[in-house]
């Protein structure tokens, strides 16, 4: 059995399972399970300090999101009526009174699949979403969703979009079933269909018998799921999710991300996830659109953002230099750091090669982990060394982006 298989890839199973199983897995995984890194603290682009995700940086590229290797694959049915892209903006500009520029000549095209809309608070993410929904008129430029103009035909667009706002938006004194049913009616479903689809959406987001309780009694995680269910109820072609993991703990965040990933892949609904947490975007998205101060920073596939720098991080309790020497002798091109060695991950064979070296040296292996640049570094300056400590890579990545 190769080391790669030996990693067990718990996240793949987690993604596939129903909600309750996911929660059990996460709970039972304990400190050595997928949550082992959850205590790690990571600075985000906003300078805010957040708890890292479980599975962060461990699973991208190994999860079930086929979109990584085949970005257009899951949205195949959409390509026909969308002309290949779900959202297109041309020189989109929005200035608020008082000369506040929220969007500044944004031109971007979003392909089917799961797309991360990443940017600091105030970068213009919410403004873009509101323009796409036809709730705001752009000062200049135009935006289309499924080739429909957002200014001229906003109502038609809104029949195709499910929107989950960032903030709390649920009345406390109704049950989840009643609320989602009503929102289904507001999406244009006939009464019976609204009831059926409400029950189904709530089931998809993992609310079962709880759905007959008043929303006011729900936990934050359950409320987020109801918000997602109301966006899903009208069977949209596109979901706009504004900070969907807001206020969730690491486990809840993981579960929410798994759910979004399922919606994007299994349900065949295109998803745009606006977030300032880059770890999340990295984990579930096929594409990334990075905006800063209302301008496009970069739009690309997640693999091209991060793929070039995939490294295997090897930690041993002692004999680090001997390990580095042996790896170099076998032509693996290791890079010695303070407490560990980084080996460029060329193919799956790299795992086996590293395993063999460790076994031959009888080195006390304490950690072996997929480690590479997170999207976060793309936003940082040259001083932006991340927790994994690869400052030399960060500089080149940033210059790539800008």
């Amino acid at each position, binding site marked *: 059995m190769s080391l790669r298989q030996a990693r067990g890839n718990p996240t793949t199973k987690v993604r596939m399972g*129903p909600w*309750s199983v996911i929660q059990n897995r996460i709970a039972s995984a304990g400190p050595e399970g997928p949550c082992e890194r959850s205590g790690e603290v990571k600075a985000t682009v906003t300078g805010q300090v957040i708890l890292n995700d479980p599975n962060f940086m461990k699973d991208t590229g190994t999860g079930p999101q086929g979109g990584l290797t085949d970005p257009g694959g899951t949205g195949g049915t959409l390509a026909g009526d969308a002309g290949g892209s779900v959202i297109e903006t041309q020189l989109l500009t929005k200035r608020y009174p008082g000369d506040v520029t929220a969007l500044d000549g944004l031109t971007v095209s979003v392909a089917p699949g799961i797309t991360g809309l990443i940017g600091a608070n105030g970068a213009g993410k919410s403004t873009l979403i*509101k323009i796409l*929904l036809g*709730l*705001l008129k752009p000062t200049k430029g135009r935006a289309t969703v499924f080739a429909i103009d957002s200014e001229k035909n906003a*109502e*038609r667009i*809104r*029949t195709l*979009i499910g*929107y989950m*706002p960032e*903030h*709390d*938006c*649920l*009345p*406390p*004194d*109704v*049950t989840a079933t*009643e609320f989602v049913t*009503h*929102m289904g*009616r*507001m*999406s*244009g*479903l*006939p009464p019976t*269909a609204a009831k059926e*689809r409400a029950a*189904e959406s709530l089931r*998809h987001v993992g609310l*079962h*018998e709880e*759905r*007959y*309780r*008043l929303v006011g009694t729900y936990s934050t995680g359950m409320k987020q799921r109801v918000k997602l269910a*109301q966006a899903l109820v*009208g*069977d949209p072609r596109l979901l706009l999710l504004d900070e969907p993991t807001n206020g969730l703990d690491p486990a809840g965040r993981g579960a929410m991300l798994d759910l979004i990933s399922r*919606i994007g892949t*299994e*349900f*065949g609904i295109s998803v745009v996830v606006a977030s300032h947490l880059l770890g999340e975007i990295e984990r579930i998205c096929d594409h990334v659109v990075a905006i800063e101060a209302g301008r496009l920073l970069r739009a690309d596939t997640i693999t091209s953002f991060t793929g070039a720098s995939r490294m295997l991080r090897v930690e041993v309790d002692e004999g680090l230099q001997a390990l580095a020497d042996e790896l170099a002798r076998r032509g693996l091109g290791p890079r010695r750091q303070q407490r560990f060695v980084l080996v460029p991950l060329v193919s799956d064979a790299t795992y086996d090669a590293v395993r063999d070296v460790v076994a031959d040296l009888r080195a006390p292996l304490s950690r072996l982990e997929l480690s590479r640049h997170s999207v976060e570094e793309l936003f940082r300056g040259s001083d932006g060394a991340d927790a994994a400590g690869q400052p030399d890579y960060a500089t080149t990545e940033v210059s790539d982006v800008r």
Partner: protein
Amino acid sequence: MSADSTLTGGALSTRGVIHDRGYRRYDGPRLGRVQIVRALLWHSFRSALGIGRGPKAKIIPVIAFVAICLPAVINAVAVARGGAQVVGYESYLFPLRVIVLTVFVAVQAPELVSRDLRSRVLPLYFSRPMRRGDYPLAKYLAFTAACLLLIDLPLLLLYLGSIASSKSNGIWPNTRGLLAGLAIGLMWAVLVAAIGLAIASLSGRRAYATGAVAIFFFLTLILSQIIQQVAQRPQLAQRGPAGPIITPQTTLPAGQRLAGLISPFNTLEGITKWFAGYGQAFQHGSGQVPDPGSYAPAYIVMFVVLLAVSFAILAARYRKADVA
């Protein structure tokens, strides 16, 4: 949240079987904007009457309907015993209608609009296929319908009670009275619902909204009555303190005639009285407002202005981008 739905949920969970049937597309019919607005209207109308909410939401609507219908029932008994009709069609019982309507509007208007503002649910409406103006329009029509039901239902009971008795003064006069009463009721509902929703939409805090609506209606009514009293006083002094003062309408001071304009209820009553001066079908109202006489156009202008201001407040409130 009925008992059996909870039971069903419980049964599902004990069996513990999760059927993951996967995601299914919806390819059934989709309703257009007009039908969506109609669905919101119906939903709002039901919530205005406390239907589809918990038992607590039904308390005020039930009390309001019982209170306002009681005189109609009493009237039916009185007419059946050979007595005269004790309640008129045009303003019903003015003080009762004012109190019941004020309480009903103060409690139920926030139920329709403040609740959605408070829970910030509006972006969910506006991200669906309806226009900005559709939401306040649906809420307004629904609330007008609810107020109309509250105002006109006792009139219908009054009518049925009167014509059912052989001792009534005939079907035709009653029918004419009823039709005029229903029309006046519509006028009341249109204005009271607009004012109530406009004030309630200014605050997401339900208690504040209820207080603001109640204070507005009561305060303006009391002010209106006080000014009438003040305007009346000089004549009181002239004619002596004792005995009923029967003042011919022609000699009523302008202040007294115009004082009704301060209160929406008195404005409505003033217009009713003015109609009554022309139409045979009207008995004299039971309100405290004198016939506005030649000042009637001012009352009609006031009615239009109040309505327009209320609509403007509602439109402005829901046009603002920050609602979404």
